[in-house]
């Protein structure tokens, strides 16, 4: 147990299959991985390799077929829906690729939503700081459809940061953004990790995005396919090339409709 306390999130022999019998798809085929506190980790791999599935299972959004998942030392694979919801609310933050915000609420209300749901008090200083850092001060009263894609994404990051969760999961957070807006969001996440000790786990296809991370975890065919500490754009590119060479059965895009 003393070992696991260093980890914000971890998975042991995690399996996740869709369907049954011959047509079953093993999206995760026994993944054991751990993310230490205060780490900015990137998860990479070819399309269909199970990145999103891994993230959803780690975050307690989806049920697992077998194996265990821990968040902040709590074994979430054993929790009831109610307890899981509460845990998500208090200890997990999310940034999705798209559709991050509730359309009826303003930017500010969206940011505070997890706190309001938990009926927790808002730390004014913290809020001001986050809003300042993200450059959203003059956009607080706007609704999502009045914000640009980059601004929406920043609001989502702010929301994730505000509740000071144990871990923030981000699934292709820059997938829909141009490089300038993408850089903004990545810098923000990097700052959160370096300056505030926040743990971030980010799924990405972009070697540039991955180079912001402390460590890159490679997935292929639902299994771990190596990792890379202190990645640079070049090292990521070559590691990716190796990973796809190692699994020739998985042409990068063919499994997608």
């Amino acid at each position: 147990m003393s070992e696991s306390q260093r980890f914000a999130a971890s998975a042991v022999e995690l399996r996740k299959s869709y369907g049954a019998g011959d047509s079953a798809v093993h999206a995760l085929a026994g993944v054991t991985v751990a993310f230490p506190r205060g780490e900015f980790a990137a998860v990479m791999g070819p399309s269909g390799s199970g990145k999103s599935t891994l993230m959803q299972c780690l975050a307690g959004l989806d049920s697992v077929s077998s194996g265990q998942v821990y968040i902040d030392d709590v074994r979430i694979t054993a929790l009831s829906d109610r307890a899981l919801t509460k845990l998500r609310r208090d200890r997990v933050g999310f940034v999705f690729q798209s559709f991050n915000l509730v359309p009826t609420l303003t930017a500010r209300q969206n940011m505070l939503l997890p706190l309001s749901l938990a009926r927790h008090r808002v730390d004014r200083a913290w809020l001001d700081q986050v809003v300042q850092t993200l450059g959203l001060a003059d956009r607080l009263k706007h609704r999502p459809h009045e914000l640009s894609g980059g601004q929406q994404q920043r609001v989502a990051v702010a929301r994730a940061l505000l509740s000071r969760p144990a871990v923030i999961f981000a699934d292709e957070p820059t997938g829909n953004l141009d490089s300038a807006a993408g850089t903004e969001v990545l810098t923000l996440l990097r700052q959160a990790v370096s300056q505030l000790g926040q743990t971030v786990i980010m799924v990405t296809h972009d070697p540039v995005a991955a180079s912001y991370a402390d460590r890159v975890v490679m997935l292929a065919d639902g299994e771990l396919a190596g990792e890379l500490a202190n990645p640079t754009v070049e090292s990521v590119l070559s590691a990716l090339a190796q990973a796809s060479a190692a699994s020739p059965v998985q042409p990068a895009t063919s499994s997608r409709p």
Partner: protein
Amino acid sequence: MNIVLLAGLRTSLARLVATGLAVALSVGFVVATLTLSTTFTRTTEQTLTANMSHADVRITPTVAMVATSDPRTSTDVLTDVLPRVLALDQVAGADVERLALVELRSGSTRSAAQVATVLDESVRWQQLSAGVWPATVAEATLDQTAVSALGLTLGDILSIAPASTGVGAINVTIVGITSPDSAGVGTGAPTLLMLPAVLDNPVYFPVSTGVLVAGDNIAAADLVGAVSAAVAGSPGIVVQTAAQAVDYQTGELSGSGTILTSILLAFAAVALFVASMVISNTFQVLVAQRTREFALLRCIGASTAQVRGLILGEAFVLGAVASAAGVALGIVGAGALAALSRTDSSTLHLGELVTDPLQLALGMAIGMSLTLLSALSPAHRATRVRPVAALRAVEAPRTATSFVLRAIVAAALIAVGGYTLVGGATRSGLGLAVAAGVISFVGVLLASTLLIPWIVRVAGLLIAWTSVPARLASLNASRNPGRTASTAAALLVGVTLVTMMVVGVTSVRTSVNDKIDEKRPVDLTVQTDDPAGFTATMVGQIAALPGVEESAVITAGRLGLSADGVAEFQLPARGVVPEEARAVARSAPTVAAAGEIVLNPSNARGLTDGTGVTVRGSGGERMLTARFDPAAQPGQVVVTAEDLLVVVASPTTTQVQLRLSDTASGAEVQLISSGIMSLGEDLVVGGGAPERTYYAQILDVMLLIVLALLTIAVVIAVVGVANTLALSVLERRRESGLLRALGLTRGQLRGMLAVEAALIALVAAGCGVVLGIVYAWAGLSAVALQANKLSLSVHLPWDQLGIILGGTLVAGVLASVIPARQATRKSPVNALSGR
């Protein structure tokens, strides 16, 4: 395009189920009404045919024929013409059908019954199931239903008395039991058959209903000619063949049936109207949700006509399936009601259900055109989707002109309708008020699509601070103003009508009760024919009857009144105990204080108000103070029982007054009355209670029926609420997933939808109740105006209005249950990824 239509249908099938239910319910209502109406006519026909099974010709009066004790004023032509008919060679036999209403007493039970004559064997249609036909005036047959209801057997003795007077009862022995009519439109009262001689006694006021004539080997048409010639000159009768007579009477009876059918169809129209709102709303939402799909179709070359065809195609399939289900529902419903009518307690015994294919087709056609017409405007909107919408998520824009136009039309309708409504209610009467009410209500419905979103928003603000789900719910409730408005409007129609009926009937009931209280302040009065009056024991027995809450005793005597310069004159006096009298009466009674004598000013004869009067009776003399009261009964004076006892040696107790519980029903009043009458032969019971309970019962039954009929409209509207919510849930699938990912529990998600539904329902109910009260006021004023002198004021039944509001709220929340189940069933991941 057919492939697209089929694919579209498959995905939207689940979304159309609720709409289909709305169509099926309203079509079912129409079909059931039509089928029952036809069945009623057919049953009538069968009954009449059975009654003429042995007759070839019937002489039917065109006016009621009542025999009176005075032969000169007797209007019974039928009895007069009978000998002339019998004298004809072609006639094998004939007889007059006569009927009288009697009071039937069997043991301690008394009930209304009718006595008919045993017809001549040649035309007699009734059949015996046991016993024999009566041979003497002291014998009778009774129908099977009554025999079992009263628990009688052959040989039992009953007594009957004329219904008009109730005196002169005679005993009759039951010698036969007639088999119950297989079906028939009866009065439900027990029917005795007795020899015609019994009804020759004019105290029964017998009515002759027709002469049945059986021919002797002659065609009916020829017999009509012969009989017509024989009775020529007698006024107020027609001679018809049996077949013609059946048609004639069926026509008369189903005339009243037609009125009933029209009233029922009016309610069905309300249900159809509400259903059309639900259908149109559904398609509106479906079109909005599929904007991108339609745009894509347009991009790849579909014409506007093809897009319109898609929606109308779906509407056609929905209309056909739902209407067919509705027709089936209607037949089953009508069958159930017809079966119910055949039970003993019903006065109407419907025969075999008659399903007319033409009517079923009509129901089908109504349902299908309703669906298609309601889908027209959404289909039109779908054609306005521009191909570019496929690339950008833009909704078909609502043009500003339609908004302004709508507002102007609504304002104009409300202004004109409202002004005329007030005019109709306060000056000209019912016809104008009804027309104005309909016009203004259409205006209100138009305006509601503009106003309700605002009201919902304000109501939402009031609850938004309580919790996050509540805030989200209030925002959701006002995010599609059009959708919210039409959902609420459907509910508004139902609630307005229900409120109007409840307030209207309560007001009439209260006003009638007030009037009865004023005119007849005492529930029951008991008088005795015995000159010695009531004994104290008897008074005690009466007061102790169960159901009696208060009692007062009135004593009587004769007094001589005189004063200075006024010669003595005699008047009957009533002695009352003031506290008793006040406790018994429902409005302020005329009572005297001790030392006071109350008299109507018309009996003054020189006495003056407030001066002393010398009162002398058989037992002594006393000085009392005169008080004039215009409300006092003329021709008698009122003093306290104590004062009367001083001047009159032995005043007789002439009347006992009773107050019954406020909630006593007609049956309970009846029971108390017969309880009193069984205490003594010479007791006479009167008072306001029977009248009060009679009206209360009629009004209650009326209200119940109307509410039952309106319930269908309300149920359809609630289905509409569930439907809108379910569609919204589908649309906000990803949003719900996001919220769940961020920590909204299942319960909170459910709560959010419940609050949203409750908001819409409550706003609709609130507006409906207010509108209903306004329309009830208008209706009551107009009726009062029409009925002259009848003063009706609005009485608000707060408890019932509370039930309406609460009931709508509960229905709204219940309507959110299934959509909420749908919303919470998906895991956040599935919802987020749109799977």
